């Protein structure tokens, strides 16, 4: 699907861009908002889109500080013992010291932690963080919590990012975010218990009663409910959500679903508690690389593609250093270091040749593993696979309420 013809994107582009001086001040972090508890109500905090000169003024008023605090997810960067080679290269090239923390376990909890701080204009302790496109990133954008980036300082992103990851529907023109990694939600299964899987229908197969894993995230299960109905999530309506909700509820009430999992589905699958489950591509690739006999497929009805995005919170102390990192990781050499360790889909397509080049230099087990990587559709997906992939629908606040009221009760019996 062409992102540029997407109605949600067009809506974003045609929205009013006028902005008051107060918003410009807020962006610069000058307004002392405090806890906005006017009267008895909690004040609305919806932010207008920032004006161009406000963005320029913001970046002109900040200097490089030589330090950077980076919040990321666990196992989401290259690691050599206690060292992070890609970050060490960053420090060597730019003189910016990085304090790297695996502070994010899931989007809702992390957002819940930083939201009160950002609402009060306080430092959250990080200058750059990784958020998945979806409800919480959209909320952060709507609340004006993210600093618009200065694309004139992102030449590597402009030159090396895949056209597919540019200009996403949730952040038109990459105004606030650039992708860190891209992943696919599909189906993983254990071939010891499960015959070949091609369809989402297998998640509803009574033979696997009590051995099916589904995800806790409402947007994840919603998409799979809609794939089962043959509905494109991007074009879905409230009626579609309700039908998908019924379908998912039937699956649950039939006792098919063992549990609605967060990240822990991987262990459950590896241990044999579940045989077939919704799964994230990189997790399964890592398990297979460790010698587990597991399979991952993108069902013929469709799979979900999601993006984890680098973004700068509005109270960042070192935004210039953060922006430097956002550009640095788009060098093919650095992106290759990352993809070889993380095993998700890289936003830098030029890495494929570099992985192959590394494979040519390597020997034995390492060579085989790098070749497997370069040839894997989980890391460098084929066009035919990409066509079946859909994003999470971008929801307005009103839509989100209905959406959550349909899909949340499914996992929260």
């Amino acid at each position, binding site marked *: 699907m062409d992102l540029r013809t997407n109605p949600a994107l067009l809506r974003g582009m045609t929205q009013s861009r006028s902005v008051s001086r107060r918003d410009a001040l807020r962006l610069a972090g000058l307004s002392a908002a405090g806890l*906005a508890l006017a*009267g*008895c*109500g*909690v*004040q*609305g*905090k*919806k932010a207008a889109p920032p004006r161009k000169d406000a963005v320029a003024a913001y970046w002109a008023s900040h200097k490089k500080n030589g330090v950077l605090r980076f919040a990321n997810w666990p196992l989401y960067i290259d690691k050599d013992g206690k060292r992070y080679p890609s970050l060490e290269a960053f420090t060597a090239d730019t003189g910016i010291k990085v304090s790297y923390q695996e502070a994010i376990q899931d989007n*809702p*909890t992390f*957002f*819940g932690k930083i*939201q009160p701080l950002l609402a009060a204009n306080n430092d959250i302790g990080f200058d750059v963080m990784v958020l998945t496109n979806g*409800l919480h990133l959209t*909320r952060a954008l*709507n*609340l004006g919590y993210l600093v618009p980036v200065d694309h004139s300082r992102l030449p590597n992103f402009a030159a090396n990012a895949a056209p597919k990851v540019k200009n996403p529907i949730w952040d038109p023109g990459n105004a606030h975010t650039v992708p860190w990694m891209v992943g696919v939600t599909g189906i993983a299964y254990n071939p010891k218990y499960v015959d070949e899987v091609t369809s989402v229908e297998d998640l509803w197969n009574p033979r696997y009663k*009590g051995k099916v894993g589904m995800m806790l995230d*409402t947007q994840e299960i919603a998409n799979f409910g809609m794939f089962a109905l043959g509905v494109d999530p991007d074009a879905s309506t409230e009626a579609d959500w309700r039908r998908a909700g019924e379908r998912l509820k039937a699956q*649950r009430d039939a006792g098919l*679903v*063992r*549990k*609605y999992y967060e990240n*822990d589905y991987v*262990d459950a699958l590896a*241990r*044999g*508690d579940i045989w077939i489950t919704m799964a994230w591509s990189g997790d399964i690739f890592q398990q297979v690389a460790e010698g587990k006999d597991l399979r991952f497929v993108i069902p013929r009805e469709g799979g979900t593609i999601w993006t984890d995005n680098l973004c700068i919170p509005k109270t960042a102390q070192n935004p210039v250093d953060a922006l430097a990192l956002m550009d640095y990781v788009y060098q093919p050499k650095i992106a290759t270091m990352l993809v070889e360790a993380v095993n998700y889909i890289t936003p830098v397509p030029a890495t494929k040749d570099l992985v192959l080049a590394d494979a040519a230099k390597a020997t034995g087990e390492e060579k085989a593993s790098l070749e497997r990587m370069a040839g894997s559709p989980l890391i460098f997906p084929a066009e035919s696979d990409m066509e079946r992939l859909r994003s999470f629908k971008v929801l307005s*606040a009103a839509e989100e*309420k209905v959406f*959550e009221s349909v899909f*949340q009760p499914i*996992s*929260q*019996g």
Partner: protein
Amino acid sequence: MKRLAPYLLILPGGLWLLIFLVVPMVFMASVSTQEGDTLNGFVQTFNLSIYGDVLAQYRTQFLRSVGYGLAGTAVSIALAYPVASWIAFKGGARKSTYLLLVLLPFFVSFVLRTVSWKFLLADDGLLLAPLKSAGLVSGDFHVLQTTVAVIGGLVYNYLPFMILPIYVALERVDPRVIEAAHDLYASGRAAFTRVVLPLSLPGVFAGVLMTFVPMTADYVNAGILGGPENTMIGNIIQTEYLVNGDYPTASALSFTLMAVMLIGIFAYAKALGTENVLEAAAR
């Protein structure tokens, strides 16, 4: 100055409670009756009907949480009482060692302890795989994601809170009182039911308070060990607050939970006779 001393002594604790308990609770009470969303803000509308709504919507989870809390507390008493009395009466010189053993699990992170259960109880794990291969249980038998697993996890995590107060109560029972009971021709059972048990009830009461309340509000065990049919009210509050940003619903649920537990505890105290219990505890 002498007359002021008691007030000065209570000042730090009082201030602490005022700032970190009373103020947030008043704020939460206010939020619970507001309407709106995080984007457009919340407006105070004194929407009291939300309490009826949340109770109706999450009735199942409320009842389930209270049920799990009660079951967990009952199992805890059954397990803790013999342990506590054994340490109190037969522990001898090693009493403090045994107490340390009871407390030892606390030196390991709460979440880690619960997660390690997942490995122990996995479908093909250490415990079930041998049982299955021996044919003692059927192939699709599982423990994880069942009510038993959640209540087991609750008991496991809160058991020391039951053992310690019962131990303290039993430890204070003068052995001569039991001797006297026997001198008055009480059988072993009568000496227990008419002398030891009544004297230990304040400890049981304190143990119930310290286990039933956190068990009912717990969300970690249901989240890690439970399945789709084991969601507790704590999980709902967490989701409403963190995922949905629906502060009014989360606040109303918290207050309703608090009310449910206070009513339960007061009813229990009434049944047991608060005055006796408190007097005994104060001795």
